[in-house]
């Protein structure tokens, strides 16, 4: 009898102790199913962490490796580009996103974000640079923005880059592992979406221009670690997704000067299972368009606009680092998520996804390379 009681005790305690924190389940979530409708074709093999990619007008491809290598993939050959700034390849930092200037044909500029050690203090922080490609090297490098202060923390650098059609560049920087100091303070960098003119100057109509001590490049704040960004071609809105902690990854529609709440409000909890905050909503703080519980660890985001994949047209694709698939989020006319699918289930850690100029979707997968999404 004693033995039985002890056994019962063990079983019960195990069952109860394993029960989830109620915040680790999202009520009434849109269920996700596995789609077998797509396969992939490897376009660029053997990459460790293909963080960013951009097609040049001649159809060749620029690829950033987090380790700091800029690769020009042309006619099936990988050429390493010289003159890339030294990157602080630490933790989640390194050479990050890359995009061509909207005026590339006339100005030839390439924009990229990276972890920079520039400055006196030890460590690094996120920087935006533009440069031109001359042969196999970068020239005319200009640092357009360097977040401060440097820190040796490995976490939360962001970063993605997009352009609007009015001469602005937007980029993100994560909160660098200082959630209680950075994201809610507009006098500090980090945990922000930034807007600059293409030459790096600060637009006079940025929301915090003239606010005392503010970092005037800030466009929105209260972010944790945004690693996906796009301009919605139908609405011209900027959409950004960010990593939550344990749960609470979000897709947000970015508004000028708005506060996205981290860490005052969140749908996530600490990695240890304890609460960060009791609240998920607050006056003056924006609600996400969609949030994930549990976290998928989103990186890269694209909206399919081509006719190459009829089912996916007008819908979102988001990479999952954690669950190693490409997530399709289907939107209704109000941009609410109504259906979710796992594409390329098990492909590997999906770091990046873009729609190429040929209308096909290209996916950067860690340890695999750049793959093209192919409909079966």
């Amino acid at each position, binding site marked *: 009898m004693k033995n039985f*009681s002890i056994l*019962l005790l063990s079983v019960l305690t195990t069952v*109860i102790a394993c029960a989830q924190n109620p915040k680790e389940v999202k009520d009434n979530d849109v269920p996700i199913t596995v789609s077998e409708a797509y396969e992939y074709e490897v376009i660029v093999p053997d990459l460790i962490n293909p963080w960013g990619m951009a097609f040049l007008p001649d159809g060749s491809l620029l690829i950033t490796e987090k380790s700091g290598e800029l690769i020009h993939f042309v006619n099936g050959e990988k050429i390493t580009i010289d003159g890339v700034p030294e990157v602080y390849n630490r933790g989640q930092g390194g050479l990050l996103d890359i995009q061509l200037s909207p005026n590339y044909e006339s100005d030839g500029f390439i924009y990229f974000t990276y972890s920079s050690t520039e400055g006196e203090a030890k460590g690094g922080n996120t920087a935006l640079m533009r440069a031109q490609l001359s042969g196999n090297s970068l020239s005319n490098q200009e640092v357009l923005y360097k977040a401060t202060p440097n820190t040796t923390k490995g976490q939360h650098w962001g970063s993605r880059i997009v352009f609007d059609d009015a001469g602005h560049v937007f980029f993100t920087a994560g909160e660098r592992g200082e959630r209680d100091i950075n994201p809610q303070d507009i006098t500090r960098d980090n945990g922000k979406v930034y807007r600059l003119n293409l030459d790096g100057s600060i637009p006079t109509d940025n929301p915090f221009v003239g606010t005392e001590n503010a970092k005037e490049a800030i466009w929105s704040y209260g972010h944790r670690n945004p690693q996906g960004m796009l301009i919605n071609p139908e609405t011209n809105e900027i959409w950004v997704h960010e990593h939550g902690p344990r749960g609470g990854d979000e897709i947000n529609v970015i508004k000028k000067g708005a506060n996205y709440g981290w860490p005052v409000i969140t749908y996530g909890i600490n*990695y240890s299972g304890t609460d960060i905050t009791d609240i998920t909503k607050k006056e003056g703080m924006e609600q996400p368009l969609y949030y994930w519980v549990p976290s998928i660890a989103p990186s890269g985001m694209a909206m399919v606009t081509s006719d190459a994949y009829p089912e996916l047209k007008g819908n979102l694709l988001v990479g999952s680092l954690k669950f190693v698939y490409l997530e399709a989020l289907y939107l209704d006319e109000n941009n609410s998520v109504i259906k979710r699918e796992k594409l390329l289930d098990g492909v590997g850690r999906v770091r990046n996804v873009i729609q190429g100029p040929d209308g096909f979707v290209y996916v950067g997968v860690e340890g695999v390379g750049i793959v093209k999404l192919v409909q079966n």
Partner: protein
Amino acid sequence: MKTALITLASFAIIIIFSASKGDQSFGTSASVYIPIQKDTSLQNSIKRGKTVYEDFCMQCHMATGEGIPGAFPPLAKADYLLNNRTKAIHAVKYGLQGPITVNGTDYNSIMAPLGLYDDEVADVMNYILNSWGNSSDKPVTEKEVAAIEK
């Protein structure tokens, strides 16, 4: 009477666990690590290693080393880790790619190089080797890490 007491004790323990709202499994929830010796330098290394772990490792391997099934292998009571000390240090120092088997499950993914200094590798190894049911009586030193070549 004895049975009744044990049953009562069971309920008491169950209530305590319910109240603690832990989502960690029973075996690992009580303390993060158990001091296995009085070596303060090891204890300090473990303490620093916890900070490194929370910055660089926890997002994938989780707070109690259980990993993510199917994607990222566990570190808690992981045979690969405990039986391949040198390979484990190598992985933390230089990253890891390709197929490995941990506790009978196959993984084939990639851990990019973390960019840690040798002393941080030693600290985080000491934390991992002495947490969540793991124990090692031989501390990893900065010198040992430095000697492991790519």
